[in-house]
């Protein structure tokens, strides 16, 4: 398996439902300082290229990419911003190192969700203006449609989705960075308000603020640094058609394609045997189950039993979202992928505290940009 690019530093600030004291720049600055300290690098001297991810409407500022260099130490250095999840940004930095353009790069993603006063309207504005927007539906109807079709096809019940909520929010209790840890009884989860039947309020990840910075390095640099490198074995990304009308509502073919690309590069033939743990999209509880199927980590017909047997619990055969996932850490918007990546790095380094697995070798991270997107990224990591 290839070991050409490694993650050599991670830093994050948060995560919290609100951060009234810090501006987004200060959040990023804090996360960056921690990441550079973690990697033991000097950003002004050592880091050769920077990538950030952001979306103008979410930031509340046009041409937001102009606002990103100073807090990262990227002034007058190669840097660019992409609209994508943090994992897309990470893959971009990975590709720059693989191509030889630079040897050490930093990636940043953040969320200042508490400053967004009209998130549902921003999501609504992402829909087709003529076919979908005229109804003025709350955009979570899209998750409701997807969940209903998936439950129908996979013979999954809303109770199975409640098990995902219970697991992830319990996992979050062991993660000091996760603000939404709670030990719920299943009835408490199921008695929640419906938002878009069968989707309940309790199935939805609540917004959170935070910033994450990751430092990547080529093999020669990684091996010279003091920190244990976590190797990137494979990366994949994929988008489906954006039209809701042409969509395959019961499956996530774009997640499957992104995963296959990453598995191929990592030379993984049977992912369910090779992957020790995974951090997957759970912005809505049903999405965790859909993603696991799409990633080839479980088949649709094995899923109901696996859930009841606790296969995905922290002590199960295939722990999923040990970090607490987005249900436990909060919806960090474009930073969701990197929040999950941080967990994978900590697990593989053996630094995950009370939630540490015993000697995991390979972890998978997958992210989705949320409704209404059909956008997936997958990264496979390995310990040294």
């Amino acid at each position, binding site marked *: 398996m290839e070991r050409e690019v490694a993650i050599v530093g991670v830093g994050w600030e948060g995560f919290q439902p609100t951060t009234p004291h810090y501006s987004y720049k200060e959040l990023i600055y804090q996360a960056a300082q921690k990441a550079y300290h973690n990697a033991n690098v000097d950003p002004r001297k050592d880091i050769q290229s920077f990538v950030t991810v952001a979306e103008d409407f979410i930031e509340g500022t046009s041409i937001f990419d102009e606002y990103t260099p100073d807090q990262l130490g990227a002034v007058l250095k190669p840097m660019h911003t992409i609209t994508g999840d943090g994992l897309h940004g990470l893959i971009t930095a990975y590709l720059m190192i693989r191509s030889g353009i630079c040897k050490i790069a930093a990636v940043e993603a953040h969320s200042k969700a508490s400053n967004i006063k009209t998130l549902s*309207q921003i999501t609504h504005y992402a829909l087709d203006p*003529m076919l979908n927007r005229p109804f003025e*539906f709350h955009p979570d109807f899209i998750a409701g*449609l997807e969940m*209903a079709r998936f439950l129908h096809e996979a013979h999954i019940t809303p109770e199975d989705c409640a098990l995902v909520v219970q697991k992830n929010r319990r996992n979050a209790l062991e993660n000091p960075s996760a603000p939404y840890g709670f030990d719920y009884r299943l009835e408490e989860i199921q008695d929640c308000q419906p*938002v878009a039947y069968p989707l309940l309020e309790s199935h939805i990840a609540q917004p959170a603020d935070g910033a994450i910075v990751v430092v990547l390095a080529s093999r020669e640099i990684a091996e010279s640094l003091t920190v244990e490198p976590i190797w990137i074995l494979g990366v994949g990304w994929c988008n489906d058609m954006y039209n809701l*009308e042409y969509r395959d509502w019961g499956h996530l073919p774009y997640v499957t394609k992104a995963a296959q690309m990453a598995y191929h590069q990592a030379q993984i033939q049977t992912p369910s045997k090779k992957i020790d743990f995974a951090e997957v999209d759970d912005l809505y509880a049903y999405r965790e189950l859909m993603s696991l199927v799409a990633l080839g980590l479980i088949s649709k017909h094995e899923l109901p039993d696996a859930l009841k047997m606790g296969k995905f619990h922290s002590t199960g055969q295939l722990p999923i979202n040990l970090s607490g996932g987005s249900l436990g850490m909060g919806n960090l918007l474009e930073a969701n992928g990197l929040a999950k990546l941080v967990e994978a790095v900590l697990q593989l380094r053996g630094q995950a505290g009370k939630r540490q697995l015993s000697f995991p070798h390979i972890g998978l991270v997958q992210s989705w940009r949320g409704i209404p997107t059909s956008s997936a990224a997958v990264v496979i990591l390995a310990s040294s």
Partner: protein
Amino acid sequence: MFSPFSINFESPTQWHGDLPVTSRYTAGIALERFFIALRDEGKILGIRCSRCSKTYVPPTLFCPQCLTELQEFVDVGLHGEIYTYTISYRNLDGSLSNAPQVIAFIKIADGGIIHKIEGIPPHQVFIGMKVAAVLKPTAERSGSILDICAFKPFG
């Protein structure tokens, strides 16, 4: 070194901003035909890709699978089947709505339409249900997806 605890909570720490965003969207050749047919003839149009044996609803000028330019518009009728549905309890701003709304993806040919389901209690709706479009009277139609009032069960 700074500390968040040094903040004076009475001091101006926030600024509120907004932006009026108004845009014009071009329907394009395929969707313009779709909306005009709906308005003037009360028809739902799709478009056929003979290479992929697919009929796209709503129509598109090109096949997203094989990228062939498409020309064969077809009348796909006003009937479809509920492929998936949801009951929305929220208004666009997130507030609770007074009247829960059934929203469905109605499969028509190899595509379909996202629309409201009416004329049936929400708990009686099911995946696979046959539904038909109910159109506004001709004089009230404007060439919009809202020229269809809703889909209702039939048969």
